[in-house]
């Protein structure tokens, strides 16, 4: 297991996931450490996105799905009977592959999460919106047009807005599902720099198709194949000296 001096944020034990009869994930056990970036890599259909979406129970929306095993956040099984999914998703934020700002103003997009969680004080909302936009490295670009529609922003700006929106509710973990796959190289670079900054305060888990990206931004990397966790270790080790043959084949481009 990677660097034992860090605290463990999230633990999964023998976690399996089913779409109907199809088992998409088989017995995943993993410890995700606090204030680090953990990358999930693997070929399409390997289950990495499904696993990511299991960590804030976004898969609950899909009918006919079922889980086995445990996902422990702060020692509590998030699939336990009396767990409040709403509260879980506040603690475990998510940024999607395709940027999805609401058709509202920039300000209202970031304020949305605060308002649904009952923050009524306008100055507190405004302050948190600014903090979040600064944290997402977007404040300087939008501070003069907060009341303009979020849909007028460029693709990269929209994605950083979605990150700001996720940060506004002060999550502990931010899940990112290929956050830069639809962006140009410059916008991608900005997102990557942002991820590097964000890990000081948040625990980041990122799914990526781009192995260079995983190598650049992450501290630990997990390689998934056919619904199984093949190897999970320090990113440096995965990319220079993987234990498993399959991992080596994948990162050297022999399949995938």
């Amino acid at each position: 297991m990677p660097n034992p001096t860090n605290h463990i944020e999230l633990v999964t034990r023998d976690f399996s996931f089913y779409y109907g009869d199809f088992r998409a994930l088989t017995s995943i056990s993993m410890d995700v450490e606090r204030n680090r970036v953990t990358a999930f890599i693997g070929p399409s259909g390997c289950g990495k996105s499904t696993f990511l979406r299991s960590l804030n129970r976004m898969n609950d929306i899909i009918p006919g799905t079922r889980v086995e095993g445990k996902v422990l956040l702060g020692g509590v099984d998030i699939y336990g009977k009396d767990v409040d999914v709403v509260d879980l998703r506040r603690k475990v934020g998510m940024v999607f592959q395709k940027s999805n700002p609401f058709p509202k103003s920039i300000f209202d997009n970031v304020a949305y999460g605060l308002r649904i969680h009952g923050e009524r004080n306008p100055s507190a909302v405004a302050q948190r919106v600014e903090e979040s936009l600064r944290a997402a490295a977007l404040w300087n670009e939008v501070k003069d047009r907060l009341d303009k529609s979020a849909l007028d922003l460029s693709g990269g700006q929209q994605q950083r807005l979605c990150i700001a929106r996720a940060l506004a509710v002060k999550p502990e973990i931010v899940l990112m599902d290929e956050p830069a796959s639809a962006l140009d190289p410059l916008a991608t670079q900005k997102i990557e720099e942002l991820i590097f900054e964000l890990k000081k305060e948040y625990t980041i888990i990122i799914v990526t198709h781009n192995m260079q990206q995983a190598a650049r931004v992450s501290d630990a990397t997990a390689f998934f194949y056919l619904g199984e966790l093949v190897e999970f270790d320090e990113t440096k080790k995965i990319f220079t000296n993987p234990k498993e043959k399959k991992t080596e084949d994948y990162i050297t481009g022999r399949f995938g």
Partner: protein
Amino acid sequence: MEGVNVDNPQSAGIGRVRAWRRFREKAIETFFLANGLFAVLVLLAIFSMLFTEGWPALKRVPFGEWVMSTEWDPTSPVRESYGILALIVSTLMVSIGALILAVPLGIACAAYIADVAPARVREIVKPVIEILAGIPSVVVGFFGLVVLGPLLAKAFHAGNGLNGVNGSILLAVMALPTIMSVSEDAIVSVPQELKNASLALGATRWQTLMRVTLPAALSGIVASVMLGMGRAIGETMTVLMACGNAPAMPHSFLDPVRTMTATIAIELGETVQGSTHFHSLFVIAFFLFLMTFAVNLVSDIILQRVRKRMGGA
């Protein structure tokens, strides 16, 4: 571009094809333009027909009397009166009453079917409600006359139960399928990504529905309400049968009322062609036209504002 010879004699042929295509594009464009213009032309023709047919009566009776007086008695042997205010108020009252019932119900129903109900329920409920739209208005009116009327009479001690609220309920039933069906389409077409974004922030399904899904579907919902309103204002047979037809100023929903459409339908067959009474019915139609026009205009303006606020797209 390897393999392409610039001096190829065929390049002249390519030029000809493009000219033909340009002509075809132009022809199609003109065809669509002509269709659009035709619709506008029909509208203008109806508008001018109503105005010219109504003009003799408008000229004869002072304008103030039309819109200020509540007395409608064009066949009085003593003094003919042409006040249509009571008819306008009755029409608005019955229509708005219908919308008060149908809009919340229709949107709630749409939201349930689109967002909450399992697919199986949706497949059954939606067609069933849409069948409601196919019931002929005379059948709905008949139902109001023999079922709803007596019920209302018993419940509110309101004469024979043929009154404003009876008409409102029936019109609500008739507007409901339109409002429900069009709203449902709008709600279903809200991208799942938006709902996911909301849910991932820890919003409940209810919060997501109220703050993301419905606002994103608002233009479709407003359109559905306008379609329903149009149906309610223009409906004739149902209100004629169920509203009691007293051409007087209503004081409550339990008073018998006569709408503008019902007045035209009842009286047009009994007037002398060319009489002031005959022409006055066109004046009513003219005002009805202006009302529906105003409703559409206002809703258009509202929609524009909404779209602007939501940004682009």
